[in-house]
């Protein structure tokens, strides 16, 4: 099961972070939060990227990487998917208007 988790972990982190950032955005707009909303959203974006980089690094590290070459390859590929997805899908936090 650990090998299956290695394959799933990075996209799972992306999905959780993506939903969380969308939720933060909803709270900011729904509750009319005016204290540095952009900073909050960009901070969440940077935190997500940091998390994805950490997961990817772990998937490459001998301590956490799978002993199976196949699982190592697939888990690292999905690790990159998580990182690219985080950068691409949450990039709008830096440029678009947030509650219009």
């Amino acid at each position, binding site marked *: *099961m*650990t*090998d*299956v988790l290695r*394959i*799933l972990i990075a*996209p*799972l982190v*992306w*999905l959780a972070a*993506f*939903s969380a*950032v*969308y*939720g933060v*955005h*909803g*709270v900011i*707009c*729904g*509750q009319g939060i005016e204290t540095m909303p952009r900073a909050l*959203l960009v901070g969440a974006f940077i935190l997500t990227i940091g998390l994805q980089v950490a997961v990817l690094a772990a998937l490459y590290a001998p301590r956490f990487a*799978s002993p*199976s*070459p*196949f*699982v190592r*390859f*697939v888990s690292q*590929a*999905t690790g990159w*998917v998580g990182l*690219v*997805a985080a950068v*691409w*899908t*949450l*990039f*709008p*936090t830096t440029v*678009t*208007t*947030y*509650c*219009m």
Partner: protein
Amino acid sequence: MNALQRHRKLDLVWASQPGFRGWFSSVNHTDLGRLFLVTAFFFFLIGGLLAMLIRTQLATPGSAFAGPEIYNQIFTMHGTIMMFLFAIPTFEGLAIYLLPKILGTRDLAFPRLTAYGYWCYVFGGAMLLASMVLGIAPDGGWFMYPPLTSSIYSPGINTDFWLIGITFVEISAIAAAVEITVTILKYRAPGMSLDKMPIFAWYALVTALMILTGFPPLILGSVLLELERAFGLPFFQADLGGDSLLWQHLFWLFGHPEVYIIFLPAAGVISTVLPVMCRTTLLGYGWIVAAAVALAFLSFGLWVHHMFTTGIPHMGLAFFSAASTLVAVPTGVQIFAWIGTMWKGRPELHLPMLHLLGFFVTFVIGGLTGVMVAVVPFDWQAHDTAFITAHLHYVLFGGFVFPMLAGIYYWLPHVTGRKRNFRLGELAFVLIFTGFHVTFLAMHWIGLMGQRRRISTYLPEDGWTTINLISSVGSFVIAIGFAIVILEVILNTASARRGGRNPWGAGTLEWAMSTPAPSYNFASLPHVTGRDPLTDDPKLPHALARGEGYLATPGRWRETLTVDIATGQPDFHVIYPGNTRLPILMAAVTGVFFLSLLLKFYWTVPVAVIGVAVLVWRWVWALGRTEDLPAQDIGHGIALPNAASVDRSPGWWGSLFLLTANATFFGSLLFGFAFLWTVAPGWPPPVWFTPSMAELALGIAGAGVSAVAVRMAIRTIRQGGQPMFAVGLGLVAVLILVAALGLLMLRAPSPDQHAYGATLLVLGGYGLFHACLTALMFAFLAARISRGFTSAARRAEFAIVRLWVDYLAIVGIFILLMAHLTGVTA
């Protein structure tokens, strides 16, 4: 023992009952897989006939063929049947039939659950068909948006049929998903490590996990909308703290992954059939696995792209537009891997290959229009037009129907054991392919000209007449093509010549048996050393028939073995239950529950619930034994312990994945609560919950003590003792939690006055249901101990109960905190 003697002995143990009786008592995956597929195609025919009616209506302007009320029912049932009663069950049927064979084992993990799922599907589908025959079918469109479907605007029973019938059918999907997941992870041939799994199994695994996490939001939405319609709990009424957009979120949290739940199994068929048609191996196996996983996850981040026109802020739109474009990348990886496979092989234009080529053309066009509608400004123009209808048909017909037709022709010799000698399929392919593109290319065009989807008629001055007529003619050409497919399948099944084993020269294990498949699949189980065992060793089928594999000596039981998930090393010996009518009986009683809700016979609801509980008790009780089983010899000098002697038994794995679906349901409920609180108009509520620290403390203590008690019980049983005290303590602790949750429900603000009270009631009810279920489990353990069914070597049930108790403790504490702390903060 020679091969024939072995076959006779195994068949005696594994075969379903002969004749008509066998239909109702079979738990055999081959029989049930075939039944699933035949039933799904029966529904496909009905859905197809409804499509013909839609196109007849739209063929001419001002058509009087059907009035708007009937037309609404027709298009709603067309979408509902195709999505819920054809596409998903076809995947289930194919996986149920194929997986044990392709994985090199004898049956699925939980044979009775397979049968229960099938009968739930049949009864739920029959409910929906009955509504159509009676002229009271659902009429709110297949995504059932409130407020149109609320009791104010749809007061009839039509919508209830959809909400209750589909929830009933979804039991089948969840059951199949649990079954498929555990089977793929644990029930494989020895030696089949993750990197040697057939690619279809990877796709089925990803799809099953998606069903487990994708379907619960829709089940929750259906429950909430039915509660609103039946009892006035205002989850979707804006004036009482609800929000109709909540339905759209819950529906599309399911609805978008659903598209990939339909596509991925078809991609599994393509990845299996294409290399065989090209006389080569699949290019980029690892890349394809990674792409399938990526696609599954990304598909859960797209749901809002169905809601671009609902007034969501720009940043929200940009998130989901970005995710929608990104999903094209892993899809492209798969497409290029398949093109590469064709490039490196020598493609032969057999009939399955024709359908695969049809898939490529159609699906790529559908994918490209998908990228178009992912772009927000384009979507604002095209939303709810016939362009969207055309796009979704290109994706679903191209991405599911063509690959499934390829699969039908590829595995038909396996199912029938006969050679295809009527060459009607090629003509059918030409008609279906041509008819499809005539119908739906025209529909793109008419959509861009402004024709809305779901309109029952239009005026001659609109200028849509010719294109609609062309589209309708195309749809009838498709219908003729499918009629020929059905004719050919019937002719082949009934009268074609017997065929040889492995007619395509494939490398996967399903062809390593005689066809049609015997009840036990393999006379002895293979040891796998590569991804294409039959290519590696063409004599493997004969060696297995001679009993040179594992479990070659037929015993008294239906038996197989499980393996370590990663390495494929054999770990446990499993004994299956035999033929039984329990699944159909339980599905019927489950049906009484749903029918009672539908017809508002509420006095029969508790009767049905008690009936299901009694049958579940009997279901689990039948698995036990009162003596320890020694390690079983599986051949090749290996003896394995029985799966009931360990903590991580098949039932534990099944519970784990069922709880995964359950947790998604609970998570969706929390999302709904947070959404209403932060976004819905009409908040704060007029009355808050009055917190009680005594009730909160009592409930938390009950949850904590039950979790400790079950651990004490496990420690005692491992040491050879009888843990009656710990089980009794756990039962009392759970009953205390029952009381705390019951008080929460009783004291919640009036649920029909505001969505806050309604949400607390549902949260409390969810917790109470699980607490009662767990109390029943403790009572079951107590009965098992007292009857001598437990020992250190028969302790699997304790670990399963621990999973449920831990889950209850977490959600119970969460629910109590949510209710009491919201009251405190208010």
